[in-house]
């Protein structure tokens, strides 16, 4: 019995992990994929020089070490030896330089012997964390994309189906799984059915369904609340009247109700762009609706505005949230009209690109087309000031940070999800089916 029990928990090789996701990517180029589950799939094929651990600290990956020079404007990165791409060529500084130059046109990336040197115009204290972003994956671009990840592409049907085979030459050792099969474009309902029928081993769980999935006894792994739902205006306020109207709208939105009812507790009301778990100061931006502030701001509106609110019509939760905001806005004296076309303000869902707060804030600012924050020393004070400055543009209203989650069949072992969502599947293995 003892030996049997040990065998049940001991990793073993073999088997195919089947995953169903909603995304339907047409290719897996990390340069164009956004963070999310498509990106998570891409991380099976491609790797970055640096990876972040669960606390958001840079850890060696394809790079073994890095040193900053010239006050953080120059970085020297030493590459790991013995790494080969899936096309059989070895990873060297030339390949790494070519990949990084392609992903970061603003950087000066040079080869220095076996090392890679990166120079920036201003101090870049968070460059190692930035190197862990998906789009900084090291990719050899020949006829096909080649990576150094634990799996290689065995079959690819764009947007439908993919089979990844274990990379026998993986520098960290062959993964336990023989292959990973991905079904793309599966709806939440389809994924649940596939999981119940045992036709997939892992399926996404929408934030609003986490509570129910757990209540139904599913094996659910969830991340920290890392996806930001926010309202974004397409321009700066043009008048004091509009400024008061934006404030009234922001104060009127009952984010707690949205989280509790619409998202079924699948997130956290957000007053800041970065969640509290990543910044440590998120609590300072109170997210609750403030009726008294609504009245105050509404009293200063001379002409009630009428705006169009855009949302992703394919996302039912986005629709419900938008409709709730429409009601809240009416209470604030602001008339909103829903549209899925171009609009005055948009309801957006953005994944945090990194668990490093500075990198995450910078990426968010870029995604929201807000002024990029500047960091000199990477301190929390600097981060707080930068985020506050972004919020004071009145261009963005944070609403909720939501979690991501997967439901796994019991045979799936060592599935790890980082706090900001990425999957770490290199050590995953499949256990035996229960009789």
């Amino acid at each position, binding site marked *: 019995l003892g030996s049997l029990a040990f065998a049940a928990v001991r990793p073993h090789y073999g088997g195919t992990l089947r995953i169903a996701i909603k995304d339907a990517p047409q290719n897996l180029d990390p340069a164009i994929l956004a963070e999310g589950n498509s990106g998570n799939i891409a991380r099976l094929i491609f790797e970055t020089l640096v990876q972040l651990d669960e606390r958001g600290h840079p850890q060696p990956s394809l790079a073994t070490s890095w040193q900053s020079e010239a006050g953080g404007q120059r970085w020297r990165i030493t590459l790991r030896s013995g790494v080969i791409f899936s096309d059989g060529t070895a990873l060297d500084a030339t390949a790494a330089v070519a990949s990084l130059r392609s992903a970061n046109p603003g950087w000066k990336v040079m080869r220095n012997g076996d090392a890679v040197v990166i120079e920036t115009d201003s101090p870049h204290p968070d460059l190692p964390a930035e190197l862990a972003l998906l789009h900084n994956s090291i990719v050899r671009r020949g006829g096909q994309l080649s990576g150094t990840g634990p799996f290689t592409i065995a079959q690819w049907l764009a947007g439908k189906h993919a089979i990844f085979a274990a990379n026998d030459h993986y520098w960290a050792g062959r993964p336990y799984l023989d292959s990973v099969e991905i079904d793309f474009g599966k709806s939440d309902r389809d994924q649940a059915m596939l999981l119940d029928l045992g036709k997939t081993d892992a399926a996404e769980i929408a934030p609003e369904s986490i509570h129910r999935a757990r209540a139904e006894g599913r094996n659910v792994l969830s991340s920290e609340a890392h996806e930001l739902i926010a309202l974004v205006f397409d321009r700066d306020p043009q008048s004091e009247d509009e400024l008061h109207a934006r404030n009234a709208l922001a104060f009127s939105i009952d984010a707690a109700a949205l989280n509790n*009812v619409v998202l079924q507790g699948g997130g956290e009301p957000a007053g800041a762009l970065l969640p509290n778990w990543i910044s440590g100061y998120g609590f300072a931006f109170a997210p609750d609706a403030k009726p008294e502030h609504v009245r105050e701001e509404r009293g200063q509106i001379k002409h009630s505005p009428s705006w169009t609110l855009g949302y992703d019509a394919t996302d039912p939760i986005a629709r419900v949230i938008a409709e709730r905001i429409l009601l809240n806005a009416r209470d604030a004296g602001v008339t909103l009209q829903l549209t899925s076309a171009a609009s005055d303000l948009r309801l957006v869902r953005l994944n945090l690109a990194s668990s490093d707060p500075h990198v995450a804030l910078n990426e968010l600012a870029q995604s929201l087309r807000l002024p990029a924050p500047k960091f000199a020393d990477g301190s929390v004070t600097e981060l707080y000031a930068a985020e506050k400055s972004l919020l004071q543009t009145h261009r963005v209203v944070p609403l909720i940070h939501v979690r991501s989650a997967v439901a796994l069949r019991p045979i799936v072992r060592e599935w790890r999800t980082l706090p900001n969502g990425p999957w770490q599947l290199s050590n995953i293995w499949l256990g035996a089916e229960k009789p």
Partner: protein
Amino acid sequence: MSLHRRLLLLFALTVLVSVAAVTIIVSAMARRAFDRANDQRTAALVAQFRREFDRKGEGVDRRVEALTTSSEANRMLIAAARPAPDYSNFLDTARTIADAQQLDFLEFADDHGKIISSAQWPAKFGYLEPAAKPSAPATPFLKEEETPAGSALGLFAVRSTSAGEGKLYVIGGVRLDKAFLATFTAPAGMRVMLYENFGRPSGFAPERLLASGPAVQDAGQIAPLIRQVQQNSRESSAVIHWRSGDDEGITAFPLTGADDELLGILLVGSSRQIYVDLRGQIRSAAFVAGAAGLLLAVVLSSWAAARVTRPVEQLARAAQEVAAGNWDAGLAAGSGTDAGPPSKDEITALADSFHRMTRDLLDQRERLVQSERVAAWRELARRLAHELKNPLFPLQLTIENLLRAREHSQQQFDETFHESAATLLSEIANLKNIVSRFSEFSRMPQPHFQPVKLNELAADVAKLHQAQLAQAKIACDLQLAESIDPIAADPDLLHRAVSNLVLNAIEAMPQGGKLTLRSRQNANAGHIEVSDSGKGLTPEECANLFTPYYTNKVYGTGLGLAIVQSIVSDHGGKISVSSEPGCGATFIIELPANREKLQAAQGTHV
């Protein structure tokens, strides 16, 4: 306007008025019949709407009632009964149930009226639903329902259920929209429309007008009718003239909610194309009838002209001829018309009368001419007798003296003979003179036309009689127009005529006076006037002045002015006199220019 034209106009007007009257009457009857049929069809369609409305209401009521006992309702009741109710699990409940129950609207609300779950607006949880109250209507009612896409009109039912202290309201409904309108089977040419009266109670929004078929083009044309119902909340009708050319009669019925607020307006439209086509046909027929009538009027007027106006026109022409002196024309006109055999109608009687009148006038004229001829001969005889008697009496006395002298001595006879012979010769010469003047009058020559300048002629006459005028202490005043064109006249005859007038004037002023000769000219005639300042003439003298052998002088023959008149008449002119007793007299000779004769005379003269 001639009688013929009047008759034509009268006939045409009669026909046109008749056709127009018939057209109007027939059109009015057709319209009345169409309106009656239209009203019946509209009433039938409205009745169908009410039946469908009631049927749908009953269906909604039944389903909502059933939902109050559903397991979901019980779950909500239990959740509502908790101290801190958590409705998060019911976000999609209402939508799921509404889909299953085929309800467009479904909301569950707690005993405070707060929405627990909403199918039409899931995000509305926590907001108050006005219909969730104990006094909600027991029967289905119309209600304006808010949705994220805007307001919608629905037929609702409200039911409640309770457990313990908890109470749950179920508010369900179906939408009154194009699909609802499409359930009506409207007869051909009819349609049903629905106006959702939201937002702007007194305005009109074209997008709120729903139709069972294609969207209503130019919906703004219905706006006045909508506003009328909005103001009065009563049934109203109007005929809409669409820009496409169609006419449509639309009857609007107000649809009110539980609190009698105007929520919708049912519009039943009926195309008036059938009536318009019929009206067009009536008008076409009227035009054809009118044209035929006009043609008939022309024919009838021609016939009437033949029967009536032509004899009248002939009579009118005959009267004009008679007035011009052609008495034979009058006799011909009165002897019957060429339009057919004489009849005994009024026109024939008029022609006969005209004929008799003309014949009588002709007889009277002949009798008058004969009388005047007899009178003239008598006057001539009297004048001759008078003229001849004066020289004959001295002749008789002279011869009697000679006879008495013959009985006395030879010497006395000789003396008497010589004296008597002289007397006899003188009187015989006098007789010859009398005879020659009568002979001269009877042999007045025809004028020989030449260009004559009236001013020169007047001046010559004045110069000729200058000595006589001076002797008679008469001043002569020539008032001649500055420029007078020559006229065609016989200068000798005209000189003689003016001289006669001057001599008459001299004789009329035995105590002296003033003689005035004037000349003037107008467009077609020249004038010469001879005025004296004598004792003037009585009206009777003026009337008889130009009668031959009439004279107011002791020794006058009465032929002087007759000769003047004869000369003027031979020139185609006329002479007149104006005088008052004591104020002198003025003789006016008017002579035509005779341009054709003048041109001929000038040609000859050249």
